[in-house]
C-alpha cells in the first residue's frame, strides 16, 4: 500500500482532463482552469490518491473559474477522497455533473476492502429507493457490501 508520494499529474486532450496523484498546494489547479478551452469538459478523477485542504480550495477555485466561463463540467470516476470532499462542502461539486464515482466496499468472506466504480445513473434509483448498492468481491467473487453510511456517502449526488 506504499503510496510513494505520487505527485500530481494532469493529462489533457480536447475536452478532457485526467487528474492523478496528490492534490495539494503544489498541484496549482486554479491556474489549470485558464488553459481549458471553451466547450464541455470531462474531468477524470479516478486516480486521485489524496487531497488536502489547500487542494480542496484550489479545486473549488478551478470549478468556479470554469463555471464563470460557462464551461459545462462532467466528473468521471471520482475517487473516494474527492467524493468525501464533495460530501463535506457543496462548493466542491459546484455545478458539475457526476457521471461515475468510486464507492468503498468490503467482503465479509475474504476480508477484501476496496473501491468499486459506480455509474451514477445506475445507483441513484437504488439509493433513492432506500436500498444499498452491492458489488462483487474481486478476490473471491462473493458479495461485497457497501462500507460506508448510505445517507452520507451519496449526499453529493443530490
Amino acid at each position: 500500500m506504499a503510496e510513494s508520494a505520487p505527485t500530481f499529474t494532469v493529462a489533457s486532450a480536447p475536452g478532457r482532463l485526467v487528474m492523478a496523484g496528490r492534490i495539494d498546494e503544489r498541484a496549482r489547479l486554479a491556474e489549470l482552469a485558464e488553459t481549458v478551452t471553451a466547450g464541455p469538459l470531462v474531468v477524470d478523477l479516478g486516480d486521485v490518491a489524496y487531497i488536502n485542504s489547500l487542494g480542496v480550495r484550489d479545486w473549488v477555485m478551478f470549478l468556479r473559474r470554469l463555471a464563470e466561463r460557462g464551461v459545462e463540467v462532467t466528473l468521471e470516476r471520482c475517487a473516494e477522497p474527492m467524493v468525501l470532499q464533495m460530501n463535506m462542502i457543496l462548493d466542491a461539486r459546484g455545478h458539475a455533473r457526476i457521471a461515475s464515482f468510486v464507492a468503498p466496499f468490503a467482503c465479509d468472506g475474504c476480508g477484501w476492502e476496496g473501491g468499486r466504480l459506480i455509474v451514477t445513473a445506475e445507483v441513484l434509483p437504488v439509493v433513492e429507493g432506500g436500498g444499498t448498492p452491492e458489488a462483487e468481491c474481486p478476490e473471491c467473487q462473493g458479495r461485497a457490501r457497501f462500507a460506508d453510511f448510505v445517507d452520507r456517502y451519496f449526499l453529493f449526488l443530490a
Partner: protein
Amino acid sequence: MRRVIVVHRDRKSQRTLSRVIASGVGPVTVVETPAAARALVDGATAAVVSAEAAAGPGFGELAAAVRTSGGHLLLCGEGGPTAVLPLVRDHELDHVVSSDPVDLADELPLTLRALAAPAGLCELGAARYLSHGARLEELVPTRTHERVALLGRLREGLAAMELSARQERQAALVADELLANAIYDAPCARDEARRESARAADREIIPAERPRLRWGSDGRHVAIEVTDPFGAVSPATIRAHVARLIDRSTSPRQGNGGAGLGLAMTFLATSQLVFHLAPGRATQAIGLIDLRARPDGGRALVPSLHLHTEPGAATSGRTHG
C-alpha cells in the same frame, strides 16, 4: 468529579453507560430528562447526555448548571453530524463521545478520568490514548517546507503498518493538516495576509517555534499528535469550524486560509479528535483513527471531539479564521 449523571431515555443505552461508568470510574445516577439531571447537579458534576435528550427542553439550563458547577457535559454522538454539531456550537460543548458501546467502553472512562485530573497540556500526549507500551515516532521540522518530507516519512511508517488505503490516507491527512496549521497558521493566527504569503517561502523555524509531530499505533488505533508552542486556537474557533459541516457551507477562497477547512477535514478523518489547549502557550491536537474492522468501514457516525482547556484561560483565546 463528585458525581456522574447519565441522561438517556433508552433502557439498553442506560445499562451500557451505567456499566461502563460504574466499573471504569465510579458511582453513576441515571435519569431520563435534562430537567431531572439539572436538579441533581451539585458540586463538580459530569453529565453524559444523549443527543435526543439534548435536543429536548431544559438542555441549555443543564449545560449552564454543569458549567457553573465546574463540571463537564459529554454529549453522545448518536445522531450524526447534523444532530450533534448544532448542539456543540449552540451550547459551547467541549465533549462529544461515541454512541458505539464498544468504543464507549474505551473512551468514556478515559475521558472522565482525564477530566477529573487537572486540565491542561497532557505530558503523555497520544500515549494516553494507546495501549501501554505503544511506541511513538517523533519528528520535528526545522524548516517550513520540510513538512512535505516529514509527511513522506510518516507515510512510509504507515505503509509498513499495512493499513487499508483509506486508513492510511486518513492518518496522512490528519498529520498534513495539523502540521500545516502548526507551521503556518498558529504563528500568524491574527494576520491572514502573512499566513497566505508564509506558505510560498521556505524559511527556518526557530527552535522555540518548532512544532512536534508524533505518531504510533497499538493495533487498535493509529494516533497522530501535533503540538505547537503558540496556543493560538480557541475552543470557540474549533467549534465554529466543525459546525460548518452541518450545512456543508464552508466556502474556501484565496486569502481566507481555507475557512477552517483543514480542521473540518481533520475532524471527519478521525474517529476521535482531542485538543489540549493552553491558550497563548501551546496547542496539542491528537487524532485517533480506528483500525478495527467495522460494518461501516471504520468511520464513526460522528467522530468524538474533546476540547480540554487549561482552567482560567478558557475564554482568553479569541475566535479567528
